[in-house]
């Protein structure tokens, strides 16, 4: 070959390759932004140039994607870092003690609130179990069994206990919840502990105040019974006449006093009954009870109103068939009193009250039938509600506490008996009470 031609070719190749050199030099330092300038004439280097350019563009694209991804990851890491800082700020500033336990019952995280409670810095707890930290046996068992339960059942638990803090023994409540990972397994549990000493003290104080209030009301009610009882007996002696014989007008006044006095005695009974029922402090004393004599006494207690309204009161029963039933006498007396009182109070002038007592196989059925104002059908389901008085009752009578049937229902329920009301407005009401023959005394 001609030496000149070879030299010309070498120059030509060198010139062509030189176009790539700059790009390679830049690429060597990571700068892939430069394009290869393609010569206008196509020759054997064109393919090389095109190939190199394509490669450059691919590299550029990949680099771009990588940079994006790295940038994206950095953003996420930044967000996570920020969140963790926020959480730590929250957890560290929370007044509650926040602890994370692992499956070996070790503290893996605990916030600084624990220092305020125990006097020990948080780091002293990390990696240790409550046992290793010297928790008292009973409390330790309680905690460990609860944490274990949360791990195995996945159920959140709340426990209350006393703990010796540096301020003395205080009440705490801990809520222990499972921490699920993406696979759904529980690797850790989180315990958030709250000081409830003040709350407990407030609760106890409230209960004490409530008890004292009831004791006070009870005391007053009982104190009222003494003068009321004395008045009753004094008036009753005066009403016997004889050496106390008085002119009719005086007698009538005495009877009025007697009636009002009896009403006060019944109100005190109601007050004490309702307080006992509401406080769940009803005591039972089942004894053989002659229900007919209780009904007779109830009628006597209401004699003034019965006479005033000229009511005909009948007791329909066959005494020899009615044996004594085992029941609390005071409760029985109060029930009979209220049912009879309603039959009398809401009755019309010249009306009637019939009390029927029938012995059934396992129970005694007592029926109070009156010819009174009746109960509006829409209100019948409410008559046993505390303080409820029917619209008719309210129209007719300002007296009445709305407590009678509430007390009656409470006692009938305790006896495991039943009570039913049938009524026709304007015509009358029939109340049927069924009492088991032997009412079991509750312990």
């Amino acid at each position: 070959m001609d030496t000149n031609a070879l030299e010309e070719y070498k120059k030509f190749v060198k010139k062509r390759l030189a176009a790539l050199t700059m790009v390679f030099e830049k690429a060597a330092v990571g700068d892939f932004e430069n394009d290869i300038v393609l010569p206008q004439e196509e020759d054997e280097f064109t393919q090389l140039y095109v190939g190199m350019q394509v490669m450059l563009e691919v590299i550029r694209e990949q680099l771009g994607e990588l940079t994006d991804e790295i940038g994206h990851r950095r953003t996420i890491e930044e967000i996570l870092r920020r969140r963790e800082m926020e959480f730590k700020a929250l957890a560290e500033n929370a007044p509650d003690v926040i602890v994370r336990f692992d499956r070996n019952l070790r503290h893996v995280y605990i916030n600084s609130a624990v220092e305020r409670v125990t006097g020990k810095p948080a780091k002293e707890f990390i990696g240790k179990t409550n046992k290793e930290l010297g928790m008292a046996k009973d409390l330790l068992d309680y905690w460990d069994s609860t944490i274990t339960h949360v791990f195995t059942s996945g159920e959140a638990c709340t426990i209350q206990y006393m703990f010796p803090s540096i301020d003395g023994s205080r009440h705490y409540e801990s809520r222990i919840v499972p921490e699920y990972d993406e696979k759904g397994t529980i690797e850790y549990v989180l315990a958030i502990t709250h000081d409830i000493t003040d709350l407990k003290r407030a609760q106890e104080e409230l209960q004490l105040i409530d008890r004292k209030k009831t004791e006070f009301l009870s005391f007053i009610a009982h104190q009222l019974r003494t003068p009321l009882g004395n008045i009753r007996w004094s008036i009753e002696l005066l009403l016997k006449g004889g050496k106390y014989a008085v002119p009719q007008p005086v007698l009538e006044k005495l009877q009025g006093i007697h009636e009002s006095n009896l009403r006060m005695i019944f109100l005190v009974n109601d007050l004490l009954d309702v307080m006992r029922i509401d406080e769940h402090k009803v005591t039972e004393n089942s004894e053989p009870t002659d229900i007919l004599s209780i009904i007779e006494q109830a009628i006597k207690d209401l004699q003034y109103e019965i006479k005033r309204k000229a009511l005909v009161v009948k007791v329909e029963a066959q005494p020899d068939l009615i044996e004594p039933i085992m029941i609390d006498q005071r409760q029985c007396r109060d029930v009979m009193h209220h049912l009879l009182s309603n039959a009398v109070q809401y009755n019309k002038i010249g009306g009637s009250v019939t009390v029927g007592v029938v012995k059934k196989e396992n129970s005694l059925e007592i029926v109070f039938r009156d010819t009174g104002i009746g109960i509006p059908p829409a209100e019948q389901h409410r008559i046993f509600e505390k303080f409820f008085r029917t619209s008719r009752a309210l129209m007719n009578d300002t007296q009445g506490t709305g407590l009678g049937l509430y007390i009656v229902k409470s006692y009938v329920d305790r006896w495991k008996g039943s009570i039913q009301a049938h009524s026709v407005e304007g015509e009358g009401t029939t109340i049927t009470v069924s009492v088991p023959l032997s009412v079991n005394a509750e312990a």
Partner: protein
Amino acid sequence: MKKILIVEDDMQLQQLYQESLVAAGFEVVMTETAREALTHLKSFHPNLIILDIMLPGGQNGFDFLEQIKRAEEYKSIPVWVLTNLDSERKTALSIGAAEYIEKANTPIEEVVKKVVAYLKPLGF
């Protein structure tokens, strides 16, 4: 004549007992405290004791009742608790009271009738 020992510190009530029971034909001795009642028991042998629960002097009616139910010479005397407390029935009967009557909830006539009915058959 049948004899009744009453342990009751309310003066008005004392008069009411006195009047109604004497009129019914009984001999009545009134005491205000458990100690007084115990003193009287030595010389006055009642056929019935009517006992209040709330008493002054350091011993209440139940203390008195327990004491006499433990005493050989007094334990057979029937004791009726007459009170305005309505929650002590079980206690009273378990200590040995023969009756428990709520004063304010019982007409005086009924109390007298019960006393008469109780003591008459005992044939004193």
